[in-house]
């Protein structure tokens, strides 16, 4: 177990290093640079600016210096929001994104597993067919369609829920539902097909044969095994929720890290952009490690040797 975690940790660092390197060079190779919009500024001042933000000198040295700062947890200064550090900006916006992401994560997992189980147990009934039709529809329709449409119906016509903003728990309802929608559907489909497969297996028949009630056979015996594919999906789910939250935050005007990311691309805000990418990637890589460990605990047949 320890060897496995150590190995995964090493590969985690390698992945992160790759992401940091790619992001850094991509952004620095972009023509224009962060101060190109202000055409009037004299050469000398631009040079001074570049020096202040440590964007001067040979590229490899900039890269090495940046890595050094990263190791110390310093994400540097934003070039757009002058005099504010990336750490500061992220400290403000990330908790907002986290609340939205975690709510959507829980919503998608719990509702998805529940719906999938119901559909599998009621296999070949109208409930099953309807649930699966609805799930495929939800997967097909993107959040940037469902989001504005939900806002239009519940926010503007019915006036039940706020259409945007942040602060009260009620303002979380529409964004969380929008973000969780497609993944709830995906998990429901995954859970259904996996549970159907498990229900046909011998050990479930044995459980039934020895006189267990149907619900006990399903929930105690079959569910535990059927959950495995869902657990493997939790890593990619976190990745999808992160990217998805960028859109949802834009739709509902939520002050999370997503809008910062988009703006930093448009403004060529070098360090803010790399900062968001690095923080998101770190989170995902850690998340995946946790998923792998959970997986091995749930299914002792899996050997940890990655």
């Amino acid at each position: 177990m320890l060897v496995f975690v150590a190995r995964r940790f090493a590969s985690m660092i390698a992945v992160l290093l790759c992401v940091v390197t790619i992001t850094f060079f991509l952004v620095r190779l972009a023509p224009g640079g962060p101060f190109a919009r202000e055409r009037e500024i004299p050469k000398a001042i631009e040079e001074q600016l570049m020096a202040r933000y440590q964007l001067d000198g040979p590229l490899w040295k900039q890269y090495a210096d940046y890595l050094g700062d990263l190791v110390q947890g310093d994400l540097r200064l934003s070039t757009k929001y002058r005099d504010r550090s990336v750490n500061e900006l992220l400290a403000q916006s990330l908790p907002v994104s986290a609340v939205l992401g975690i709510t959507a994560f829980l919503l998608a997992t719990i509702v998805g597993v529940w719906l999938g189980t119901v559909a599998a147990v009621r296999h070949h009934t109208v409930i099953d067919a309807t649930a699966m039709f609805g799930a495929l529809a939800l997967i097909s329709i993107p959040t940037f369609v469902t989001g504005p449409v939900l806002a239009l119906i519940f926010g503007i016509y019915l006036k039940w829920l706020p259409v945007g903003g942040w602060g009260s728990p009620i303002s979380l309802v529409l964004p969380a539902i929008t973000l969780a929608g497609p993944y709830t559907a995906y998990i429901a489909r995954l859970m259904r097909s996996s549970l159907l497969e498990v229900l046909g297996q011998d050990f479930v028949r044995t459980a039934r044969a020895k006189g267990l009630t149907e619900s006990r056979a399903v929930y105690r015996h079959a569910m535990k095994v059927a959950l495995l594919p869902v657990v493997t999906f939790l890593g990619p789910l976190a990745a999808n929720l992160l990217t998805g939250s960028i859109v949802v935050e834009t739709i509902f005007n939520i002050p999370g890290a997503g809008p910062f990311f988009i703006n930093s691309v448009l403004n060529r805000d070098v360090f803010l952009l790399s900062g968001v990418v690095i923080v998101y990637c770190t989170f995902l890589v850690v998340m995946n490690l946790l998923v792998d460990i959970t997986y091995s605990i749930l299914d002792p047949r899996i050997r940890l040797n990655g």
Partner: protein
Amino acid sequence: MDKVMTAPPGVWRRLLRNPSAVASMITLAVIVILAVFGPLIFQTKPHEITGAQFAEPSLEHLFGTDVHGRDLFARVLEGARISLLVGFSGALISFFIGTTYGMIAGYAGGKVDAAMMRLVEVLYAIPRLMLIIVGSFVFDSKLKAVLAGLGSGELAAYSKIIILIIALGLIEWLTMARIVRGQVLALKSQQFVLSARALGQSHVKIVVRHILPNLAGLVVVYLTLTIPAVILDESFLSFLGVGVQAPLASWGSLLNDGREAINPVKSYWWLLFFPALVMSLTLLALNFLGDALRDALDPRRKR
């Protein structure tokens, strides 16, 4: 040999008996025909700015007009052209990458396979779209310069679309690679492959002549399912303003325009409704068709 390249018997029959598959095929046919020939038939002018700002849907403007008085029907058709083009081409690129990658991993097996699949796992878990956003932004201006150097400025406007096709093709192959690898692993140990090897055929020949034809059905299913995924990604980027750029339209950018036109005072619902409707119908049809194809190709799998 020729026989294995055709679909297994009964696939068409089973597909045509599935009402949702038939409905999907009809919907798709209508949308594709409208996207390809519509602009020619209706002589639409998606970029023409008129005084008729925010006109409601009428016979003259079937879907109404937007903030610049542009005909929304014309713009939705243009969006369909661009979104479908990006979807099909991007899916084709990821189809080539995914199939090749999966076949190599599955056929090689062992350590090579383990390493290749580990890479797929890692790629699954990083926010690929974020890197694509950064990358497309960088390469767009470079390609624009190259295209402008080649001649007309007309061509340069399409550089973003080319970048999007390549970039999205580069990220949507993971599922395809996984599926193909699994199938190759299963095929590899079957009698006909073993006998081909015993006859002394080269690895390349075995893969191309014996394994590839057996993958055809499966690969078509996942190609059908990759197209909506790429369209979704493209509209995602365009919605955020980092994909297809104005005055060109894609479903994503139209939806963003529509969302911005909605406010409590006066909502121009048609700007949101029509792009959303056409896009959702297309994606639904593609996904339902892909699912139906999968069931038709493997009747035992249908649960």
